[in-house]
């Protein structure tokens, strides 16, 4: 296998794109599917797509078990949202929590991870106080890290529940404050739609935009195939004229053109997401410069997809590193970034010499 990426060369992607190809898989390919599903945590999703087909017994067992595990996390998340309803008057639930609370079938068997919620910036102090009073605690004690979050990030330092040990991120924006993306939050809050009393989620275009921002501007991209699967599902689910008509103008209006461009491009390339031609044409104005795009075309698939051979593993490592550097670059403007990295470096050096 060469370092050049073709989605059909990765058996997990082939199954996600066209579940009916399950019939043709060899023994070795099934074993690769189980491995790739395990590392990407997509086993529950695969089970949802494949459960009605004839599958080898070992595959049935592993995928159904992954589904059971995902369902457990979904139940926990719904319970936490229920508890938050009792503490907070009005909040927006983001990502996995929103998919679960809204009853999307995307959430079935999907390992939930942390719970992310969002309130307007002005409510942060009050909200944090209420949460701390009701059993939530700070995970990060270090003073510099606490200040870093509060000054630069789009969320408070993470909280954990004292008894249930669930993690909660309290956001006030969908991109870091220091980020090169400057997102006006007021239109996002006012467009949010109610799910149940006191709980809201982002409007359909904003759900898609947040999913893309999270994948391409909020982390290292690496290992986030699950996020791309979310994005693919949302785009298929909201596939109607009104949604597609609103999407690109909304992205441009909010300053989120670039992440949307990447989201559409790689969802289509990797998961064959159907996207209307008119939307693809309109999205061209958000296209990055050619060298950047060439780099992303190489790095994104390698970082997202479990490597199957020595060459792809090397390519994946290289891609991870570059995307990691990129994620820091995007998250902070130059001066604060330099300050932050110096600080981190000094701390690492001090702890090394303390160990020695």
């Amino acid at each position, binding site marked *: 296998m060469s370092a050049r990426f073709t989605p059909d060369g990765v058996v997990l992607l082939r199954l996600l794109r066209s579940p009916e190809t399950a019939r043709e898989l060899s*023994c070795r390919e099934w074993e690769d599917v189980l491995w790739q599903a395990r590392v990407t945590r997509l086993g529950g999703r695969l089970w949802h797509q494949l459960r009605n087909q004839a599958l080898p017994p070992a595959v049935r067992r592993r995928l159904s078990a992954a589904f*059971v595990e995902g369902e*457990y996390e979904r139940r926990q998340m719904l319970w936490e949202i229920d508890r938050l309803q009792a503490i907070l008057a009005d909040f927006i639930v983001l990502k996995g929590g929103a998919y679960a609370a809204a009853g999307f079938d995307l959430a079935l068997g999907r390992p939930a991870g942390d719970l992310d919620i969002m309130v307007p910036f002005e409510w942060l102090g009050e909200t944090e106080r209420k949460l701390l009073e009701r059993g939530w605690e700070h995970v990060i004690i270090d003073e510099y890290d606490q200040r870093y979050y509060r000054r630069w990030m789009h969320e408070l330092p993470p909280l954990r529940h004292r008894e249930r040990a669930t993690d909660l991120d309290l956001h006030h924006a969908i991109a870091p404050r220091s980020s090169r993306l400057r997102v006006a939050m007021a239109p996002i809050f006012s467009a949010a739609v109610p799910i149940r009393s006191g709980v809201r989620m982002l409007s359909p275009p904003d759900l898609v935009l947040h999913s893309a921002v999270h994948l391409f501007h909020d982390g290292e991209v690496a290992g986030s195939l699950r996020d791309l699967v979310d994005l693919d599902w949302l785009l298929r689910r909201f596939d109607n004229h009104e949604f597609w008509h609103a999407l690109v103008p909304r992205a441009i209006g909010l300053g989120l053109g670039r992440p949307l461009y990447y989201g559409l491009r790689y969802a289509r390339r990797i998961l064959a997401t159907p996207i209307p031609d008119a939307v693809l044409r309109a999205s061209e104005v958000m296209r990055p410069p050619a060298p950047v795009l060439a780099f992303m075309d190489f790095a994104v698939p390698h970082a997202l997809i479990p490597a199957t051979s020595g060459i792809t593993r090397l390519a994946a490592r290289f891609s991870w590193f570059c995307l990691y550097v990129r994620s820091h670059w995007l998250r902070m403007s130059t001066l604060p970034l330099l300050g932050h990295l110096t600080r981190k470096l000094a701390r690492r050096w001090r702890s090394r010499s303390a160990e020695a």
Partner: protein
Amino acid sequence: MKLGALSLDQVRSQLRHASVRLRVGPFAIAVSADDPDFAATLHFLYQDFPLLKDEEPAEFRIRVDYPHGLRRWWRRQVRFFLDDTEPFEPFPSNLAMPFFEWGLNWCIYEHAHEFLIVHAAVVERNGRALVLPAEPGSGKSTLCAALVLEGWRLLSDEFALIAAPDGRVLSIPRPIGLKERSIGIIRALSDTAELGPTFVDTRKGDVAHLRPPGGSVRSASESAMVGWIVFPSYLAGAENRLEPLSKAAGFAKASDDCFNYELLGATGFEFLASVIDNCECFDLTFSNLRAAIDLIDSITAPRSAE
């Protein structure tokens, strides 16, 4: 075809160049390893286990391997991989077999949520299973080995797997891991006990494995109705006692001994309730193995018609 039908050389070569593919209870596993001693122990302990059919996928691809670089030669270590993930720190190289056994346990309790998994030894006689749930150090494995040498069928030394709300447990009759003094006790108990090599100075002290009887392995596909749950606890110098437990108390204790009771939600409750509904529960405190077996016999012996 059974693993024992292959020669040791064939097993060594398959482990090194491809994999040995085995059915272990309900699971299909593929093992590869480059240690010749590991091959010999696997060949001995797992001799009665069936090989997978051609083109049958394995759900756990396990590799027990030496590291590259210095540690391959100096203070040699061995590593455990599930595909390309390495869930544990390396072990000293002579412990490949115990490492494999613990690693396979990990694969099961970490992933096999299609079952309710009780941490328990299970044996069966006359169609009824005796489940012995317990923490390490409770004498569970010793008791299990002794019962197997008395003629009980081995279902499992480690896991009671419950697959449906039908009161039954599945069989996964892997080698019984004996620790420290238990090794000598079991050896003294029976001349026919077939033990693998003793591994000294593992994290859990000395360890040796009792080879599962061929009959138990041959009937591994047969589940069994649970007749009794006995919670053993070994206590040096204690009086040997067997006390009945209410169903509610038995349920509570057994759910504590599950790996994934909470994770399964309502399903876990239904599966366990179906077992408890159909069996009797007891607490067993013992200091003497013979006395413990006699107490177990007193509740499990087939009653003659009166």
